[in-house]
């Protein structure tokens, strides 16, 4: 059998996948196995497919994805912790023809930024919010998040979250769905190839719907934090399926009437 070299394999006709041109060449700083990279990639692909690069203004949060602007080849602003929806509100109102998104983790969106989240969605700001929920503070080293599950361990609840002492996890996406200003609210995950495909469809809708000017589009992505959870990536995905998804069930919470 003839020897096949790598150069022979790496040919345009053999390509089955390429990175979106909306993703820069900067190496992601995320831990191996983390869902952030996948979520970034899906959003980048949707922006590319809908030809929105020149119209996009994104807002990065404080948290693990604070450096998101290094990875996306679009104009971006870095917000103070929790304030991304306030920035996005002004951007969209001052430039209504642009596509404006925020990308926020659970601490950013559902703890320190709860007021901005609720009020932007309640005003029905025509923005798209991507909410990454991994039930923990990743960047600061695994502290309890507003979405940490009951009895789940984190560095500031080392014996598990005692809801009588530490309060209950906040299902903020469910609250957002009840607000008259929200237009499309869905909960997805990126822990299996099938879920990645579904999440991409949801993100695409949340981006496309912004043009309708009918209110806030909100996509929660239940994700893992294998470093914060102190698990291997594979174990983290299994734990996500067995523990996170029963508490945060996947699917649409609010869909536009067609």
């Amino acid at each position, binding site marked *: 059998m003839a020897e096949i070299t790598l150069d022979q394999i790496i040919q345009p006709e053999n390509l089955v996948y390429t990175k979106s041109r909306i993703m820069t060449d900067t190496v992601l700083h995320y831990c191996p196995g983390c869902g952030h990279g996948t979520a970034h990639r899906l959003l980048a692909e949707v922006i590319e497919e809908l030809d929105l*690069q020149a119209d996009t203004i994104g807002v990065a949060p404080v948290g693990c994805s604070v450096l998101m602007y290094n990875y996306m080849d679009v104009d971006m*602003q870095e*917000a103070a912790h929790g304030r991304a929806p*306030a*920035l996005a509100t*002004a*951007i969209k109102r001052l430039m209504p023809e642009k596509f404006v998104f925020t990308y926020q983790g659970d601490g950013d969106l559902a703890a320190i930024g709860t007021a901005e989240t609720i009020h932007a969605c309640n005003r029905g700001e025509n923005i798209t919010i991507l909410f990454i929920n991994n039930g923990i503070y990743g960047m600061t080293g695994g502290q309890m998040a507003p979405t940490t599950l009951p009895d789940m361990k984190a560095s500031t609840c080392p014996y598990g979250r005692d809801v009588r002492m530490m309060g209950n996890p906040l299902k903020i996406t469910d609250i957002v769905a009840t607000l008259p200003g929200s237009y499309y609210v869905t909960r997805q995950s990126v822990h299996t190839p099938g879920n990645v495909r579904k999440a991409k469809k949801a993100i695409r809708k949340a981006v496309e719907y912004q043009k309708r000017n009918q209110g806030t589009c909100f996509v929660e992505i239940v994700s893992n934090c294998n470093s914060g959870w102190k698990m291997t990536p594979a174990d983290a995905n299994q734990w996500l399926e067995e523990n996170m998804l029963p508490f945060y069930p996947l699917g649409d919470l609010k869909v536009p009437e067609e």
Partner: protein
Amino acid sequence: MGELRLMKGNEAVAEAAIRAGADGYFGYPITPQSEVMEYLMAEKPHERTGMVVLQAESELAAINMVYGGAACGKKVMTSSSSPGISLMQEGISYIAGAELPCLLVNVVRGGPGLGTIQPAQSDYFQAVKGGGHGDYRLITLAPASVQEMSDFVKLGFELAFKYRNPVMILSDGAIGQMMEKVELFDPVPRSKEILPWATTGKTPDRERNIITSLDLDPKRQEDFNLKLQKKYGEIEEKEVRYEKIQCDDAEYLFVAYGTSSRVVQKAVQLARSRGIKVGLFRPITLWPFPSKEIFAMTGQVKGILSVEMSAGQMVEDIRLAVKGKIKVDYYGRMGGIIPTPDEVVEMLEKKIIGG
């Protein structure tokens, strides 16, 4: 001559914002400055000029809306009063750190805490020394009349965009609430210019624009700070503004800004009627502070009395300016009380002339 109107200081700020071609105002109600947003909403600026006016859910949201709008290169502003401005400090630091132009109006009331709704000048330190975290400066303009409330909106936006730096109008509850004749400047159309650094959508002809105050590399972060300091040095060199009233033959000097300077103007008349040759030096920019110009007075006057509606804040900058060459003292009232001209002259006699 421009259009003449009888207006409250707060209303003059709002009218001037529309006329200055502001793109957006984001605010939250607080006494004694709520008339700014009330006037704007009543004027329907979205119909007059297309200006966006939004009542935010908090001062936190308002200042971050200002950040978002300013980062798009838009002419945006907010106004508030002392407790609300305190709540905005984090956002102001981020705005300074991201080098964004915007206008902030503080119609100061007495503090600390919830304090009072009466006028005060006790936010001087907060405005000129930082307020939020990090080494940054706000260009701080101190109006002493309703006319200046209007004029400084236009000037403030010009300075903000010239230096890509936040500008604060440090007013007080008296100037915000009182009515005076004001000559309004002619309206300027809203700018359609797309600024090269602003986030307006990445077009193929340029790299993406990123607005951030974050840089985790210590060397780059220090270099950025040095660049900021250089800019502040340039502002200190070029943008000092002040007014001297009856200073030519003065043997003593009052230094006062805003409402206090109006009281002191009366005090100057009163003192001169009693044979005391005293003048008023009114800083218009509190930062950059007119240090050189005050130092220049030390060869002429024997002593300086700083008159403030605070426990004595600006007096520290005056002392730094005169470098110990002449006597400097302070007189002021707090808690929303405005000093009287009589009190001021009495204190000049007691603390400076007789002291």
